[in-house]
């Protein structure tokens, strides 16, 4: 840690702020504490993240030490060291694709020429030396071993030479061994072939299977390959007799590079075809290749553009490092020409080979004559672009970079140098993170004043400048110039992403926990549970068994849900038990005590690494079986708390589904029967505070999302209208009229099938109105929603030639009989119209002059309400007036003074016995029932009207003679109060019963499912509760006094 400086800043009213150098505490002041300085880079953080990796390297002067460092996106960690008996020569470093903790490395030691290997455990940050796989490869200047992991199992294979003709040695290392430090290679095995001693060896794994292709050149300069199928090698194939290394020039000198490979191999990535390629340079300078199609090798082909003039010296050959671009099916082959001093590359574009490209400036002396190609080629995971760092041997400086843009199939120009001003003569190795856009390079230089550099780029990495690349001299001693004495990898199996869609549905004595596994690989899901509160102590290590205690919690599940097919309940302490049902991906925690709060934390786990949300930000979800008061809730649905409040009145497909939305822009579909999550999505960046419209589209039309005919339409504070398949949750489109728009109220939908002949449009229509910051230029518009994106049918904008329109914060109301749209708005301080009438057909403004209150009605923050026959429209103002207008001419029918701002919507009852009654709540907490008597309104409940703190929109059940309203105890719904649901007598307004829905919550607007006869209500803690039966629905909670 490079010195953290503390700086404390004070701010308080009316005074400037200043800084001091030590922390102070002063009750009257507000403190802002900020640590300033380089962040503390722990080389072994809790878990590897995307962009994290590891580098190994040797040096020439300090000699016999193999060094290592971890790095993240911006910084290298501390240097570790392994003392060898001699200099570091060829190295290889590989990351397990399945175990986030596991790396393997190998190094040929000069002198002995032995291959020494080590295994790294991320969880302990420790390299452990394991078996020296061979005491002598016979050479220390060439790649005579290679390590590769199997993609699926994570088992490792090492192939190597041992100075024995016709024998390729190999060993395996199981991924199942644990702990990692105890893992080691199997006994040596031999793949025999008819040839000399292996001269160079390469291995590459199939990204879609456990196959590993191994290729090698022997001392006779013949090129071979064999396929490892995860268990054994198949037959040996000879691809070439006499590579370029067998050729001599007229003076008798070899044409091939002294020590570099003249062949390479790669697999096609990202598909299921399991195709691979081996390429090599033959004795007359022609680059050829064979393709493995999953069952056999094809015929050899010449690669156009890379062949040399006969007699030219050859450099090495590289086939796009290790794999084809998964996204774009590209493969690159690089070949060096010692006479031209250039590197040529050709890329397979999916349909054929392109034109050869030259790397390096004309006249430069590319190092291709002896040691092979000083380049690496890696495909960036996020873009598919090919990154080629390379070293120009003479007359140029630093590590250069070329990027191939796969989207346009074009090469960029030479960029760099990335490493300062010195001339580089050493090696370069690179890797591209498969989990991010990061690219890493390690490069060594032979100069005495400069050593080994690590270069990492966590950004788009599109330019070869220090602006994007972090370049660090990680070792100051010079590197060997012809030996690849360093390597770099990104962790492939990084810590998993957290689970998503975490929900709990509570029943009597039982909670059902549901989550969606992350897309990143996992080996386990671990669930902690505790009672009383959601303050968890420590995070688990990961290996704890079911029933184990972790801090103040108990592990109730720790298994791989993909393979856990057992639904047998497991006792986890006391009377509780868990069972996991793979078919529904749900964990049932049963035997609970109603009224007790149970809290859960769910971790995704990959090996020993827990997901990267294991800190304070991890969501903990609380639930009670039920509250223990009969009749209890049928179920309580609890979406993870970080999605925000759900005070919206749930939208219903009665008896089928319930739709609710949250302050985070999330929408959830819940099964009406069981309260389990059907689907969840967060389409919006702003809150969705009003109901989603569920629409069965007219005729055979869809909402432009596949074939969806049952569609959900939602409006968000981010200004967008969102559409979705209401049944599956799949697909979406969005529409925003203009940047800066805010939509607060729900959308109104006119259904063509239910409209009369006066409705001219051929499809259904959506109507939206804006709550923008302007006080004059808000908008109302109509959308035809049958296409994606939808088309705008008409638009009204306040101001200009139109009357000014203040913000609209509630949904419009539709009059089907007259094809009219009613909109209420604020009034810019009582100076503008606030009740608007439009034609739904063409948007014509029908409220003019003094009709519908003209400019005198005042601010209206709640939606307009229509009588069942459409003859009367009602509006409730923020000054407490209910105004009724005759829709035939906009004249005032009557006005009623409620005395306090109308806070909830108006419910105009139409059912027998209560027709013509209006129910609403005002800001002072009073719940009202008034009756429209034609020329006036009558306060039915009068002095008996109830008062409920933060009274919600009331829901009326005439058949039961009840009214239900949400609210809370105390003077307001601040911390310490109880969220409550009240039952009122519809005749008198008297509070009959109440039920506590939890401390420190605010209760939203109730809804009633007429099929199941269930009351549903959301709350500020994100839960949705449901109670059965209209009569006595609350049961008389003894803890709640009405």
């Amino acid at each position: 840690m490079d010195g953290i400086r503390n700086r404390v800043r004070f701010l308080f009213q009316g005074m400037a702020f200043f800084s001091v150098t030590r922390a102070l505490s002063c009750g009257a002041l507000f403190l802002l504490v900020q640590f300033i300085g380089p962040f503390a880079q722990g080389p072994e953080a809790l878990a590897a993240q995307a962009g994290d990796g590891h580098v190994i390297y040797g040096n020439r002067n300090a000699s016999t030490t193999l060094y290592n460092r971890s790095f993240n996106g911006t910084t290298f960690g501390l240097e570790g060291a392994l003392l060898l008996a001699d200099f570091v020569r060829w190295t290889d470093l590989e990351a397990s694709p399945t175990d986030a903790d596991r790396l393997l490395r190998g190094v040929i030691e000069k002198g002995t020429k032995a291959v020494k290997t080590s295994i790294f455990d991320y969880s302990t940050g420790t390299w452990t030396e394991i078996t020296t796989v061979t005491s002598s490869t016979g050479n220390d200047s060439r790649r005579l071993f290679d390590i590769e992991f199997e993609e699926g199992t994570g088992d490792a294979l090492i192939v190597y030479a041992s100075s024995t003709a016709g024998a390729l040695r190999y060993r395996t290392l199981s991924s199942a061994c644990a702990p990692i430090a105890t893992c080691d290679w199997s006994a040596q095995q031999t793949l025999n072939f008819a040839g000399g001693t292996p001269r160079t060896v390469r291995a590459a794994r199939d990204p879609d299977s456990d196959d590993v292709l191994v290729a090698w050149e022997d001392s006779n300069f013949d090129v071979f390959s064999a396929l490892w199928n995860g268990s054994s090698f198949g037959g040996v194939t000879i691809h070439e007799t006499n590579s370029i290394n067998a050729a001599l020039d007229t003076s008798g000198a070899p044409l091939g590079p002294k020590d570099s490979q003249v062949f390479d191999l790669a697999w096609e990535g990202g598909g299921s075809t399991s195709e691979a390629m081996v390429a090599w340079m033959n004795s007359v300078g022609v680059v050829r290749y064979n393709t493995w199609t999953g069952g056999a090798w094809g015929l050899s082909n010449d690669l156009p553009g890379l062949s040399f003039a006969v007699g030219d010296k050859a450099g090495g050959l590289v086939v796009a490092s290790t794999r084809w671009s998964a996204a774009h099916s590209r493969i690159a082959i690089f070949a060096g020409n010692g006479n031209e001093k250039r590197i040529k590359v050709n890329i397979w574009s999916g349909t054929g080979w392109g034109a050869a490209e030259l790397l390096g400036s004309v006249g430069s002396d590319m190092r291709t004559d002896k040691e092979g190609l000083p380049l690496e080629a890696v495909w960036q995971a996020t873009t598919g672009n090919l990154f080629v760092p390379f070293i120009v041997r003479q007359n140029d400086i630093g590590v250069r970079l070329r990027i191939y843009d796969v989207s346009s199939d074009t090469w960029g120009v030479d960029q760099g140098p990335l490493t300062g001003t010195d001339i580089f003569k050493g090696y370069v190795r690179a890797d591209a993170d498969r989990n991010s856009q990061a690219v890493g390079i390690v490069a060594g230089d032979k100069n005495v004043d400069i050593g080994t550099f690590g270069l990492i780029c966590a950004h788009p990495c599109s330019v070869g400048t220090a602006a994007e690349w972090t370049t660090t001299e990680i070792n100051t001693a010079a590197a060997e110039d012809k030996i690849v004495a360093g390597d770099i990898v990104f962790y492939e199996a990084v810590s998993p992403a957290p689970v998503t869609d975490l929900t709990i549905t509570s029943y009597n004595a039982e909670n059902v926990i549901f989550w969606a596994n992350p897309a990143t690989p996992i080996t386990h899901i671990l669930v902690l549970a505790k009672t009383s509160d959601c303050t968890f102590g420590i995070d688990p290590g990961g290996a704890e068994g079911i029933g184990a205690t972790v801090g103040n919690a108990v592990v109730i599940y720790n298994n791989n849900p993909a393979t856990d097919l057992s639904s047998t309940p497991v006792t986890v302490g006391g009377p509780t038990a868990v069972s996991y049902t793979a078919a529904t991906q749900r964990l049932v925690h049963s035997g609970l005590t109603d009224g007790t709060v149970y809290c859960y934390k769910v971790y995704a786990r990959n090996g020993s690494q827990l997901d990267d949300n294991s800190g304070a930000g991890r969501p903990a979800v609380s639930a009670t079986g039920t509250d223990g008061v009969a009749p209890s809730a049928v179920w309580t649905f609890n979406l993870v708390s970080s999605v925000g409040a759900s005070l919206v009145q749930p939208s219903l497909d009665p008896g089928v589904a319930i739709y609710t939305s949250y302050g985070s822009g999330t929408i959830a579909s819940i099964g009406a029967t069981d309260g389990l999550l059907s689907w969840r999505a967060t389409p919006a960046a702003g809150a969705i505070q009003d109901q989603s419209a569920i629409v069965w589209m007219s005729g055979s039309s869809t909402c432009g999302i596949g074939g969806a005919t049952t569609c959900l339409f939602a409006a968000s504070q981010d200004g967008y209208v969102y559409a979705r398949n209401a049944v599956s949750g799949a697909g979406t489109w969005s529409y925003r009229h203009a940047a800066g728009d805010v939509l607060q109220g729900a959308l109104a939908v006119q259904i063509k099938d239910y409209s009369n002949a006066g409705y001219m449009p051929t499809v259904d229509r959506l109507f939206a109105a804006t709550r923008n910051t302007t006080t004059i230029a808000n908008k109302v518009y109509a959308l035809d929603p049958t296409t994606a994106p939808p088309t705008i049918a008409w638009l009204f904008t306040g101001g200009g030639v139109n009357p000014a329109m203040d913000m609209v914060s509630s949904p419009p109301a539709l009059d089907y009989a007259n094809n009219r749209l009613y909109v209420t708005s604020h009034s810019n301080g009582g100076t503008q119209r606030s009740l608007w009438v439009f034609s739904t057909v063409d948007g014509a403004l029908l409220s003019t002059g003094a009709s519908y209150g003209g400019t005198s009605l005042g601010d209206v923050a709640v939606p307009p309400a229509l009588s069942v026959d459409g003859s009367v429209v009602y509006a409730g103002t923020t000054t407490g007036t209910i105004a009724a207008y005759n829709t035939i001419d906009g004249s005032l029918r009557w006005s009623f003074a409620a005395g306090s701002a109308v806070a909830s919507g108006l419910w105009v009852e139409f059912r027998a016995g209560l027709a013509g009654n209006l129910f609403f709540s005002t800001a002072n907490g009073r719940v009202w029932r008034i009756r429209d008597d034609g020329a006036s309104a009558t306060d039915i409940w009068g002095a008996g009207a109830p008062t409920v703190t933060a009274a919600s929109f009331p829901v009326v059940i005439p058949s039961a003679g009840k009214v239900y309203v949400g609210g809370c105890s105390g003077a307001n719904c601040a911390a310490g109060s109880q969220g409550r649901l009240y039952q009122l007598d519809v005749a008198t307004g008297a509070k009959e019963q109440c039920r506590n829905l939890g401390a420190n919550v605010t209760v939203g607007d109730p809804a009633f499912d007429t099929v199941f006869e269930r009351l549903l209500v959301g709350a500020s803690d994100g839960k949705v509760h449901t109670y059965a039966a209209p009569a006595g629905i609350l049961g008389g909670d003894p803890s709640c006094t009405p």
Partner: protein
Amino acid sequence: MHAVSKEGRMAYFMLIGLLVSGLAMLLPGTAWAGGGGQELRHSGASAFLIVAGTSVYDQAGRSRRSGGMRKTLTVNTSFSISTVRDVYVYTYWENLFGEHDLIILVYSPDGQLYQKRVVPISIGQLSSSTRQVPGVENVVDVQRTTPLGRYEVSTVQLPIAGTWITEHRLLGTWRVDVLLDKASAPVTSGTFIITE
């Protein structure tokens, strides 16, 4: 209560010569701010926030018409539910560069998370007007911060009038936490009060 009339702030406006979207960027020191935290991934970055609100209309008659807008921006810790229209959270950043995601967590007086907003910001050159943010399907407008002295200021609007806040009378002390990118701890926090 510490209200600053628009005329009263003009000296500041003239001093800093800055108007943003019709709303004044506020100098620190004129208002309340509080809280703080450490952000590991962003070396040296610091932040504090200021809360301001616009009234539904200018009851005191102090406002001016500007571009057809008529609002009074009140810098304070306390706002009346009957008059406040929107609350703005200004976050002042120091030593922060490039593109980031702000996570704005707004907690209602009952202590529950009322709203979560992810706001992409760009300090310096704006590379694109919209981009994806974690956890949100739709692209989100990138907010280019406004330079103010050595600070870069980001703004988040919290609608009040006509929302759940007025319908459910969510009165009391509100808390705002500002997080940066993947950090789990707030960079800065603050509170404000909504009164009757």
